C-alpha cells in the first residue's frame, strides 16, 4: 500500500509541472498585460501614467520578458525557496494574499460541504428505502428544482426574503459592528447567521445531485444477492442497510470527494460575489481578469495540485472502504 502511495506521489510531479506550464501560458494569452489594465483603471480614477512611467512599471514587474522566461523564473522561485511570486494588484507576495482569505474560505466551504453530505446522504437513503412514496416524490421534485436553479439566483431570492423578513440582506460574513472586535458569543452568533445563506446556496448545488446518486446506488445495492441473503438470515433491516447496502452505495460519493477539494477553494465564485463574501473566488476572478499573473497562476496551480491529491485521497479512501478494490490490488501484486 505504501509503495502504491509513493508511486502515485511520484507520478504527480510531472503532471503538476505540465499543468503549471499550460496554466501560465493560458493566463498570458489574452491581449494586454497587467500594466495596460492598470493604466486604464487609473485613467478612470483620473490619474494618467506617461509612457515612461508605464515602461518603468513593466520593467519592475518583469513583464517585458517573453512568457517562458517569466515562467521559468517563477517556477524556480517556487522550487528553490517556496516563493509563489508577487501579486501586482496587491503589491504583496502571493502567499500573503492567499493567507488573508484562507480562513473565511475554509469556514464557508467546509460548512457548505458538511451541509451537503448531512442533507444528501440521509435523504438519498430515505428516498431509496421508501421508493415511490410521497416523501420520495417531494424530495425528487425539490431536488430537480434545486439542480435547475442557478446558484446566484437562489442567493438573490434568499437575500430578498431575508431583507423583507428581517430587514437585512445579510451581505458578507460579519456585521460591521463586530469587525475588529474580539471573538465573543454575540460575534459567533452573528457569523452563524451570516453563514446560513451562503451555506444553503452553495450546499444545495451539489446536494441535489448527491441525493440522486445516493438513491440510485441504494436501489441497486438493496437488491443485490448478499443483501437478500443477509435479510433471509434474519439480519435486522437497519443493520443490513448500514453494513451492506450503504457501505457499497457510498462508493461513488467517496471517489468524488477528492474533486470537491478544489471546489472548497475556488468554487461558487459568482455566489460569493452576489453575497459579498470575502473568499478566494472573487480574488481569483479579478486576478484572472487583470492578468495578475503570479496570483492567478499560483491559484490555478494550487487547484491542479489539489485535484491530483484529491484523486489520490479518493483512491486511498476507496481502498479502505471497499474490500473488493483492496483485494483486487493485492491479488495483482
Amino acid at each position, binding site marked *: 500500500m505504501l509503495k502504491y502511495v509513493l508511486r502515485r506521489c511520484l507520478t504527480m510531479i510531472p503532471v503538476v509541472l505540465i499543468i503549471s506550464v499550460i496554466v501560465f501560458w493560458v493566463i498570458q494569452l489574452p491581449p*494586454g*498585460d497587467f500594466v495596460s489594465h492598470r493604466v486604464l483603471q487609473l485613467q478612470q*480614477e483620473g490619474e494618467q501614467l506617461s509612457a515612461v512611467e508605464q515602461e518603468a512599471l513593466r520593467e519592475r514587474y518583469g513583464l517585458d520578458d517573453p512568457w517562458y522566461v517569466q515562467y521559468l523564473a517563477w517556477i524556480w522561485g517556487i522550487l528553490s525557496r517556496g516563493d509563489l511570486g*508577487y501579486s501586482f494588484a496587491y503589491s504583496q*507576495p502571493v502567499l500573503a494574499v492567499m493567507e488573508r482569505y484562507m480562513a473565511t474560505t475554509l469556514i464557508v466551504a467546509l460548512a457548505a460541504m458538511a451541509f451537503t453530505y448531512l442533507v444528501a446522504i440521509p435523504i438519498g437513503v430515505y428516498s431509496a428505502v421508501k421508493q415511490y412514496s410521497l416523501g420520495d416524490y417531494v424530495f425528487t421534485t425539490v431536488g430537480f428544482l434545486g439542480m435547475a436553479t442557478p446558484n446566484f439566483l437562489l442567493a438573490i431570492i434568499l437575500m430578498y426574503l431575508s431583507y423583507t423578513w428581517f430587514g437585512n440582506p445579510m*451581505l458578507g460574513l460579519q456585521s460591521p459592528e463586530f*469587525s475588529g472586535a474580539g471573538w465573543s458569543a454575540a460575534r459567533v452568533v452573528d457569523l452563524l447567521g451570516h453563514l446560513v445563506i451562503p451555506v444553503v446556496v452553495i450546499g444545495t448545488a451539489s446536494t441535489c445531485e448527491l441525493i440522486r446518486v445516493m438513491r440510485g446506488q441504494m436501489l441497486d445495492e438493496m437488491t443485490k444477492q448478499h443483501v437478500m441473503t443477509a435479510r433471509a438470515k434474519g439480519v435486522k433491516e437497519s443493520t443490513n442497510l448500514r453494513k451492506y447496502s450503504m457501505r457499497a452505495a457510498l462508493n461513488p460519493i467517496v471517489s468524488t470527494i477528492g474533486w470537491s477539494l478544489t471546489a472548497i477553494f475556488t468554487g461558487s465564485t459568482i455566489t460569493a460575489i452576489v453575497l459579498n463574501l470575502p473568499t478566494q473566488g472573487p480574488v481569483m476572478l479579478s486576478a484572472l481578469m487583470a492578468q495578475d499573473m503570479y496570483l492567478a497562476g499560483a491559484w490555478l496551480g494550487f487547484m491542479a495540485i489539489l485535484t491530483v491529491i484529491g484523486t489520490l485521497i479518493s483512491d486511498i479512501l476507496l481502498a479502505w472502504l471497499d474490500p473488493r478494490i483492496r483485494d483486487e490490488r493485492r491479488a495483482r501484486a
Partner: protein
Amino acid sequence: MAISSPTHGTADIRRRTALGALGGMGLIALAGCADGSEGAGSEEVAALNEVEEITSADSLVESPMLAERVEAGELPPVAERMPALEDIMIEPVHEQIGTHGGTWNFPTRSAQEGPWDIGKPTEEALFRFTVEGDGVEPNVAKGFEVDDDLTEYTIHLRKGMKWSDGHDFTSADVMMWWEHIMRPEIFGRSVYDAFWSTDPSTGERAMAEFSAVDDHTVQVAFQHPRPMFLERVAIDAKWMFAPAHWMEEILDEFIGEEAALEIAKERGFEDLAGWYESACYYYWFWSDRPMLRAWIPTEDAGAEQVTWERNPYYFKTDPAGHQLPYIDQLSLETYQDPSHVELQVLEGHFDIGQFEFGSFTLLQENAEQGGYQVRQWEPAGWYSNGVQFNMEPPDETLRELFHDARFREALSVAVDREALSEQLTLGLGAPQQSSIAEGRPFHQEDWAQRWASYDVDRADELLDELGLTRDGDWRLRPDGEALRLVITQQSDAPQAGQFEELLKHHFEAVGIQTDVELVDRGRFGDLNDSGQLQLTTSGVIGGIHPIFRPDTVVPLRAGTPWHTQYGTWYAAEGAQGVEPTGDIMELITLYREMSAQTDSAAIDDYAEQIIQLHEKNLWALGYTGPVPTLFSVSNNMANVPAETTFADEFRDLGHGRPAQFTFIDPEVETA
C-alpha cells in the same frame, strides 16, 4: 458668492490665486453653489461664516470623544493640539453649525481596486480649489506670495500645526517630500508638470528649486515664469509634504538599503518600489503613518471593514470654534459589486452612496423608505453618450473619411437624439451635441445645436456626396469594398451594449453597416494603444479648463481614443505615433503658447481658441448632454451640497468639504 475664504485677514498675504480671470468661471458659482437656490437661508449661512479668526483658546470646542481622552491624560488639551489661534483654518459651514459625533458608514471598493474612494474625500491638499471652482485657495498652507514675473513662490505654513501623531508640521516636511521623495522619483511617478518651467524661446524645461526660509516658510523658485503653479500643485501634487520624522525611519537614504528592504518585507512588500509607492503615494492605508487628514485609519487596509477615527490634531474649526471634523468615525465597508451599495442604501445603512446615473430611478423610488435624499452633482464632461473617432485608424480609406467633416456630420445627424435621450437618460441628458453647458466657462453659443438635428435626408445627402454609393441596403467605400464600421466599448462599462446597439440601428438606417464589439478591459487598452480602434463609445472628453486637465482635449499623451496616436507622437517627441496636421496640430501649438503665458486673461484667450477648434471639428460626437453623478445622502446628515461640480480636479466628493458634514442627531448613527 458670499462664502469665500473666511481667512481673508492680513492684507500682505495673497489668499487666493488671481485666476478669477478664468473667463466666465464666476458663473459656475451661480450654477454650482447650492446656497444660491436656498434663498433666505443662504444669508444666514453667510452671516454664520463671517468669522475671520478664533480669538480665544477658550472658544475652542472639541468632540466629547476627545475630551474623554484629554481627561484621561492620553491627549494634550485641544488648544495645544491645534495650530496657533491666528493660524487655525476656519472652514465655512454649508448649511449649519454641526454637532460632534456619530459614525459615517462609508462604502468602498477594496484598497487595491479603489484607493481613491476614501483617498479623495479625505484629502488635505496644500492648495485646493475654491467652492466656486474659480481658482485655488490655501488649505494646508496658510497663504502665499509670488513675485511679479511668476518665478518665485513663497508658501507660508501654519504655526503650531501638527501631524496626527502630535509631531510639528514644518517646512522640513515639505523639503523632505521634495528632496527625498519627488525628485528621486521613488514612488513611480515622474517629477510633476507643476515643478517645471519652460523657456519661452527654446521650449526647454527647467526644474524648480525648493528652499526652506524658516520653519514655516518654503520658497519655490523657477528659472522661467511658471504661471498656474499653484493650480498645477492642486491637481498634480496635492500633498507636497511628507512626515519627515517618519520618513527618516523608512527611506533607504537614511537607514541604508538593507534596513529599508527589511521594513518593506515586514510590510508585505517584495521590493522598495512597491513599498515606497504605498508609503509615499497611496499612503492613507497605513495606520501608523502620520497624516493631516480629518480622519485617520485605526488599522491597516486588508480587512473587510476598517474604522477611521477623527484626527485629534486636525487644523480646522467651524466658524463657532468647534474642532472639525464633526463626525467622529468612518466605518469603511468593502463591497464587491455596486449593487451591494444600492441594496444597503435602500436599507438605510450607508449614509452617503455615490452612483452612476443608471441608478437614478431606483434611488428616487426608494428615497422615502431608505431615509435619504438624492443629490445631483454636475460632471465636467461635455456629454454623457457619444462616440470618439480614432483619427488615425489603420485603414487609409477610413482615415480619410474620419478626417472629412461631412462624414462626422452625417453620423451626427443620422441619430435621433430625442429618442436616445429618453431611452438612455430618462430625458435628463438633453438631446444635444457634445458641448459646454451654459453658465460654464467657455460656453459657446449654438454649439449644442451644431449637427444636432435628426435629419436622415441630410445624412444620406452627405454620404452620397462623399462617394459612398449604395449597393442594395449597404453603402460601398470609394474603393468599392463594403463600408463597415466597428464601434468598440469595454464590456464592464455601465450598461455596455445598450447605447451601441441604438447607434448601430441609426447608422444602418443610412446604409452604414455597423458592428458592435464589447471587449475586455485589457483588450480595449491594447486596441487603443496600438491605434486599432475605429469608433468607441468609451470615455468622455471635456473638463473644467484645458489648462487644468488637457488630456482629453489636447493630444499631449496617449490614452484618449480620438487622439491617441497624436498624443503618443507628442509625448515621444516624434519618435513614435503619428504627427498631427491642420487643426489638431493647432491644438498643440495653442496649448504650448497658453502654457507660456503669464497673464491669466491671455491664458483664457488661448483656452477659448482650443475650445472653438473642438466646436468646429467635433472629433467626438455627443448625442446626449451630461447627466449628473448621484449621491444618496441620509436625511440625518447636513452640510452636504445639494448640487455642485463633480470633477476629479476638485476631488469628487471632497469638493463638498466632508470635514464639515454633520449628523443632525449623531446619537442614532452607529456602524
